[in-house]
């Protein structure tokens, strides 16, 4: 992490707990960079997270109020805090399993209410912390510890889901697109309403090693190649879009 962002970290934090090659460190950097560029005061910020690897991005690392909650419930906790004290700039940072599977109901209802929260969903397409089980975001065919023959179910398109539920701002980027990601987080923080960013973050330890990615670098490279912009996607046929990840902003009503 760039030295100029160290002020945003708790003084006693010397390292992060993420595995080598994990995308969450890059995500952590982009979140803090967005906060830095917006000149936000960490005393006014509340970071809420659930359970899982991504939930450790803010807790204990960020030098602000942090609420590390129950599995799946981060958005519900954040709703109460934000509604009672609207002065708190409230950001939820958690994983795909946490926010969209066990916590899916809270996600769609907060989007429906358009509660003024920024939700960052670190999507590694698998349950990382518990040992690599299939998730509601794992692509069809993924090998996981509970789908050793390949996942047969389709994954959620999280952006479509949250958009349909009524969110003001919805975007998807990969950690291989850090500058776009910083801009998206800045926009999300400025939105008065529910802002949701799906961030594709590779998990070489649990996903990569089971799915023929020989190294974290190769996984990042593949992720980078799979991502195409919304505009590029419009030019492609359904067939050509198979296996691609469409990135960009899908709604910016609140801006």
């Amino acid at each position, binding site marked *: 992490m760039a030295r100029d962002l160290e002020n945003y970290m708790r003084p006693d934090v010397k390292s992060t707990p993420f595995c080598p090659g994990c995308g969450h460190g890059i995500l952590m950097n982009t979140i803090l960079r967005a906060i830095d560029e917006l000149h936000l005061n960490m*005393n006014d910020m509340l970071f809420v997270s659930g359970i899982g690897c991504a939930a450790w991005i803010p807790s204990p690392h960020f030098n602000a109020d942090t609420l*590390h909650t129950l599995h799946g419930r981060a958005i*519900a906790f954040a709703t109460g805090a934000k509604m009672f004290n609207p002065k708190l700039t409230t950001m939820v940072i958690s994983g795909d399993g946490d926010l969209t599977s066990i916590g899916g109901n809270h996600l769609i209802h907060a989007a429906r209410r358009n509660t003024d929260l920024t939700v960052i969903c670190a999507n590694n397409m698998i349950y990382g912390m518990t040992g690599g089980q299939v998730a509601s975001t794992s692509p069809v065919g993924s090998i996981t510890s509970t789908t050793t023959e390949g996942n047969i179910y389709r994954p959620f398109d999280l952006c479509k889901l949250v958009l349909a539920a009524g969110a003001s701002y919805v975007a998807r980027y990969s950690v291989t697109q850090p500058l776009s990601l910083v801009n998206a987080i800045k926009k999300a923080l400025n939105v008065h309403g529910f802002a949701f960013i799906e961030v594709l973050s590779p998990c070489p330890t649990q996903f990569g090693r089971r799915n023929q990615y020989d190294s974290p670098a190769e996984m990042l490279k593949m992720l980078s190649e799979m991502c195409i912009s919304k505009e590029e996607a419009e030019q492609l046929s359904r067939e050509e879009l198979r296996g691609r990840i469409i990135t960009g902003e899908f709604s910016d009503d609140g801006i």
Partner: protein
Amino acid sequence: MHWKETDSILSPGTYYFSGNEAVAEGAIAAGCRYYGGYPITPSSEIMERISVRFGEVNGVFMQMEDEIGSICSMIGAVWAGAKAMTATSGPGFSLMQEAIGYAAITETPLVIIDIQRAGPGTGQSTKVASGDLMQAKWGSHGDYQIIALSPWSVQEMYDLTIEAFNLAEHYRVPVFLMGEEAVGHLRERIDVSATVRICDRRKEPGAPPFGTEADDGVPPMPAFGEGERLLVTGSTHNEFGIRKTDDPVTHSKLVTRINNKILKNREEIIQADAYYLDDAKVVILAYGFTARSALFAVDRLRRDGKEVGLLRLKTMWPFPDHIIREIGGSVKKVFVPEMNRGQIIGEVMKYAGSEVIAYNQTDGEIIHPHRIMEEVRKLV
């Protein structure tokens, strides 16, 4: 001091309320300004009244997507500085259990009103029972303590709701008001006094928010946005909130203290009322709505010269074992009528030392005074 007298929000006087309405008014009087709820019979009138009255007192009312959302949003609001409440019944209380454990380990003051109905499962949603008392004590996993109160009148639905908030704040613990359908829907006159004694959160900027020197202490509680840069986590944590998930000493210290802070102070917490105990040979031990029937029965039996007394528990948890030991030592028989298949009787048997007789009724109806009189006549 964090205790203060405040003016009542309702003008002092006599009101004719249902138990559920009285709970809503008691909460507002105690300073409750966040409510996260989900509809469930027979508690919904509490939420309905709060939704109207919060508009008048600048409270924040959120009807959440489910009971899990309700309790979790409450915990978020409490750490943002609110006094918060929710009300529910059996199925919703079941859904809240995981978060109750979270509140226990993070020492988050909460007030949960459980208007008990006949279970298990969906059971009889409009019928009365007291089937959730052991769930109140043991519902979430791990070792923790809570406080549970048992009201028997509309007046107590008001008074004990205020008491529940005060205990929650004083001990930083979830407190349950274990009402029953019958008292939730009962209408009675209640007196509202001019002032209300309330306990406010103790602040001590810079002090560790999750630990004390003493093994039974209650730390001060800051809020988000006060510049304390809090670390709140449901994982095992040290006194500053830093996760210590593989340190045996930290875990043992934390779990011991959150248990001790209630158990070692139980004589200060516990309230029970005694009737005709001095010369009683048979004592009825009752709580909640059943205690009303029991008092009626005891009054009548006394008129007939029967040496019968009543111990009425207002505090269910922590359990008043010292009172039961004392009574068990001086009476021959303890009669325990309950609207369940025998929950509190197990605790009574642990401590009474005398013969303990059960009367269990689970038909969705209150226990009639005449049933109690009939049963007790067989014992004296």
